[in-house]
Each structure stands twice: as C-alpha cells, then as structure tokens.
C-alpha cells in the first residue's frame, strides 16, 4: 500500500487535537510536499522484516515527526524563509509557534512510542533525538567558521543527519525485539555511512552539482556555513585564499577564487572518489548484514543496496 507523507501525520487521534486549529494548519503545511524518504525507508524495512501494519505506521510516523520537528527548529535557527517552496513556519506562524510545534511533535513521539510498550525503542529514540539536537547545536556553533575541517563536520553530521538514518534501519529490528549487538553495530555503521553520503551529496547541491532539485546556489556559503565540500576544497588553502573564496557571490567568482573551473572539477572528482570508498564500506557492511537476517528476509539486502546510488549520486538505481 502506498502512503503519502501527509497520511503519516496522524498515528493516534490524540496527536493533533481539534481544539488547536492553528497547530493543525501548521502541520498540514509542513507535512505536505515532503518526500518522506525516511518513512519510505521504514516501510521498506518493515515489509521485509514482517512488521505489523501498526508497527510500520508507528515507526514511519515517528521518524517523520522527528524529522519535521528538526526542520521547524532548523528553519528558525537558520532564519530560512522557505521550506519546501513555501513560507517557513516561523515566518508564517511566528517563531514561538514554530518552536512549540516542533516540541509538540517530539512529545507526541514519546507518547506514541511509550504506548507501544517497547522500552528499548523509546530509549533509543530519545537518544537519537538528543543526538539530533546536539548536532543542531554544534552546527550552529560553526557558522562563520571558514576553517572548520571535514573531520569536524563529519562529527556534526553524524549527530545531526546520520542519527535519523541509523534510526530508520535499527528501529524496525528493535521493534521486533531483535537486539543482537553485532547486528546493531553493523546497522549503526551503515546508517552513519548513509547519513554522511546523503549530507555530502546535499552539500554538493550548493555548488550546483547533480542539483536537479534546483537548490539555491552557494546558499550555505552565503549564510556563513562552510559545508563538507566547501571544507574539502579549502583544505590546505591559506587564510588569504579562504578569505577570498568565502566572499564569492556566484559560482563563477567561486571558480576564479579557487583557481579555475578545471581545479574545481579536479576537486570534485577527488571528493567523489573519497565518497566511493564510503560506498564500498557500506556495501561491505551490507554483506555482513546478510549473515544476521532470517530466512525470507534476504530481499532486504537487494533493497538496501541501491540507497547509495539514490542518496549520493542522486540517480535512480539501474
């Protein structure tokens, strides 16, 4: 059964009480237009691991609630005016409402999950939320820092971005009360790699690389944030060179500042090559995952394999 993100909005009738119309309107705006990639990932896991429809809905809804709560807070922190092509919630409904709406989503996550009764799932989800918030906090603390290194950004992205990917692939096993340590270590590494690849690919959009979504060019840089590809380019550059790079207003100015388009392409190839080794690592862990699956669950491997194609190369798997 196909389900859109907006369908995931409600798990329990109590989720969004009718006596809070503004809150409902805000959520309708927020959820509509989302791709629901994480919920789709849950559905894929659930279908192969034989989760019940109720469990699948709970997990799908949980991840979308957490993700959307982070977007509400993120837009306010970044002062982003647009979210999914529409006015951001903090601008449309006031910052106070945006904060409350984000907090409310996180609270509903805990209410719904604790109602399900799996305490390990509740605990793990709470850990992921705290990781996410730590990541947000740390990311904000490096805004304006144009000398930040790729390693430092990786640590931030592991908290902010990868934590949700890890949750998507670990939570279905936890919901089934499958707690083998080795299995979860493997899933943890896979989630980290998916998160890093997704983030790095998303950061490339800023430089108009594989940017089919039409994301704003040099948006991160203009808002004072040196993203992973920016940090990779700036590696080994002098303070003066970095000063001139970060002042670029257009891609042409950027190419000029780093030493020409050819140099940019060279750096991009090196960046892709580095990420290919992450993809190789993901495939390695995927093969390990196979050893932990029960008979009948093997199809999961085939479905998880193309994720790196989708998330990093942003193309449909062949």
């Amino acid at each position, binding site marked *: 059964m196909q389900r859109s993100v907006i369908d995931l909005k409600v798990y329990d009738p109590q989720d969004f009480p009718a006596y809070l119309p503004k809150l409902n309107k805000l959520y309708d705006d927020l959820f509509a237009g989302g791709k629901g990639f994480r919920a789709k990932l849950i559905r894929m896991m659930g279908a192969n691991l034989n989760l019940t429809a109720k469990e699948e809905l709970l997990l799908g809804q949980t991840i979308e609630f957490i993700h959307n709560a982070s977007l509400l807070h993120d837009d306010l922190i970044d002062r982003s005016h647009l979210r999914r092509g529409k006015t951001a919630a903090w601008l449309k409904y006031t910052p106070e409402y945006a904060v409350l709406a984000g907090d409310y989503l996180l609270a509903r996550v805990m209410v719904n999950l604790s109602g399900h009764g799996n305490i390990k799932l509740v605990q793990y989800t709470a850990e992921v939320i705290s990781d996410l918030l730590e990541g947000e906090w*740390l990311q904000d*603390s*490096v805004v304006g*820092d144009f*000398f*930040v*290194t790729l*390693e*430092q950004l*990786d*640590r*931030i992205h*592991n908290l902010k971005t*990868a934590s949700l990917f890890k949750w998507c692939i670990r939570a279905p096993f936890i919901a089934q009360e499958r707690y083998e*340590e*080795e299995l979860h*270590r*493997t899933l*943890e*590494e896979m989630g*980290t790699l998916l998160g890093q690849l997704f983030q790095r690919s998303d950061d490339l959009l800023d430089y108009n690389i594989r940017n089919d979504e039409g994301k704003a060019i040099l948006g991160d840089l203009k808002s004072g944030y040196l993203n992973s590809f920016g940090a990779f380019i700036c590696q080994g550059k002098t303070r003066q060179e970095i000063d001139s790079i970060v002042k670029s207003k257009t891609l042409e100015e950027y190419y000029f500042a780093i030493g020409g388009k050819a140099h940019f392409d060279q750096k991009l190839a090196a960046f892709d090559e580095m990420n290919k080794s992450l993809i*190789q*690592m993901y495939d*390695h*862990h995927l093969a*390990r995952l196979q050893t932990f699956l029960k008979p009948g669950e093997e199809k999961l491997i085939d479905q998880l394999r193309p994720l790196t194609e989708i998330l990093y190369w942003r193309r449909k798997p062949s």
Partner: protein
Amino acid sequence: MSQLITLSKSSPEFESYLLGTFSQDKRALPVQTLNVNSASETVTFRIVPITSLQRPEFFTVFLQTFKVKSFLLILVPLFLVLTINLADSAPLDPQTTVLATIGVLLAFVSVNLRNDYMDHMKGVDRVLEKSGSRAIQNGWVTAAQVKFYSSVLLALAILCAIPIIIALPDVIWVLGASVAVGLWAQFKKQNSFKYRIGGELALFLMFGPFLTVGYQQAMGILWDAESVALGCLWGWLVLFVVHLKNFANILPSAQAGFTNTINWLGFDKARRLLAFWWVIFVLFNLVYHGAYAGKYWGFYASVVLIFLSFSFIARLKNISSPAGSELQGVYRSGFKLFLTTIGLWVFECLWYLLQ
C-alpha cells in the same frame, strides 16, 4: 584495490589483524569509526598490499614513528638540570651523566611507542583521528613492530640504568618510584583506557620531579629543593600542553567517554582551567627564579610571557564551539607559549653558562 574485513574481539584472528601479523605482504589498516562505542569491540580493516602503500622516505617514517618532535619534553628538563649544575660548578660524574641521558631518552621513546601500541589495540586511535604518531594507522609499521621496538628500547634503557644503580645506589629509589607510577598508569590504562585523570598525575610526576631529581642523582649530585621545584615547574608546563591537547579533542573524547580533567570540567570550565593553569605557571616561574635563579631573568621572562599571554587568553575567551577550527587556534596559541618559555629558558641557561 583494497578489500574490507570486519572482525569482532571474539574472533580468533582479531589480534593478528590488529598486530599486523596476519600477512607478510599486506597491511590491515583500521578504518576510523564515528560510532565510538564500537571502536574497541568490532574493527573494520582495509586490507592493502604493502606495495601499494604510500610510504614517505625512511627519514620521515623514522621521525614520525619515534615522535622525534616530542623529544623536547624530555630533552628540555635534562638540559636545564645539566646546565644548572654546570653553572653551579657541581661535581658531576661524566660517565653516569652520559648513561643517564641516553637511558632516559631510550626509556621515553620506549614508553611513547608502548603508548601508541596500546592506543591502537584499545581503539583510541580510531576515535581520535590525530592521536599518536599515525605510523601504524598509515601502515608504515605494524603494531607488532612498534611493540618490539618498545621492548628493545626498554631493555637498552635498563642496561643503561644498571651501571648507574651500581655506582649510585640511591638512584634506585627515584627509579623505583617512576617505574611504580608508570606501571600503575599502564595498568589503569589497560583496565579502563577511558580513565585518564590518573594518567595526568603520573605524567606530572614522571616528566616533572621524578625526572629532574633522578637525573640530578644519576649525575652523582645529591638531590635538592631546586631540582624538585624545577621538576614541578616543568611537570606543570607539560600538563598545560596535555590539557591543551585534551581541550582540542574535547568533543570526540567526551563522546567516547574518556575521563580526563578537561572533559570532567566541561567546555566552559575547561577554558578557565587552561587560563588559570597558565597564569599559575607564570607566577610559579617568577617565584622559582626569585628563589633559585636570576631575579632579573624571572622578571624579564614574566614580562615577555605576560605580554604573549594576551592573545592566548583572548582566544580562550572568544572560543564558542567545541567542534570548530577555533580549537586548533587555541592549541597553537598555547603551544607557542610553551615553545617561547622553552626558548627563554634555554637562552637563560646559556647566559649562565657563559658567565
């Protein structure tokens, strides 16, 4: 093309891959993990043929493996004790002095290598990407080789110590205390590699008063309050650098659950600790000079250090992120103070010698 292999601690091959003894023509390079809790239990290795490794020239490998840069930590106090005694025209024994110098240096390199080996086996080098010499992580040497070098150098250091102990039996007390503290720190690390506050105390004693007192005794001169004070001063300065380094690694080491003074205090209090530690050092240096050295040197050195401290304190005050590049800026600024202090001391000692 490299291949990947993941092994858990329970696997019988685990140790041979970590040690690098699993193959004659391949190296197993542990892949860094951001999931710190799994760092020591499960390790993914990239298996690379030795021929395909990018290996710098021998000299670079040597300098990095043996961490020649860190020799400063041991050579400076030896130089200070030696020149102070030469300037005081103390009756030192040239043979035991030479033996002690070589022995201390060998023991230091041995401990350094052993530390890198332990960090590799325990997974610390997979959590802190800049820890240690990185020679094992780069595949230039295997952990087994590092352990072997460490043992050989330790044996040589013991050989150097034996004639000194025979000639000057009192040295055995300081040597015994140093060995006891060293073994205690190693034992703590082996059992709980995440606890490091005890290690900081061990570093202070071994790089500080134990070293200066032991070296002075090994030169055939009775230990005195000055050698203890000098040791405490140097030990304090060494710990300043250790705290600086821990501060630069505050995020990954806190995530990994390492307990050192900096993590224990947290980011904001740690900044205050660093400033406080440095101010105490400057005062201690002034008091030391007032008691044992030229007061004018104490005054001039303090003026220079106070003047240079402003930018360090300002950096500490302005740093806002435990994850950004400012951490390295603070480290570099603090390390410059450390190097400047050494420069001033060396200049001062040469001045005394030439008098």
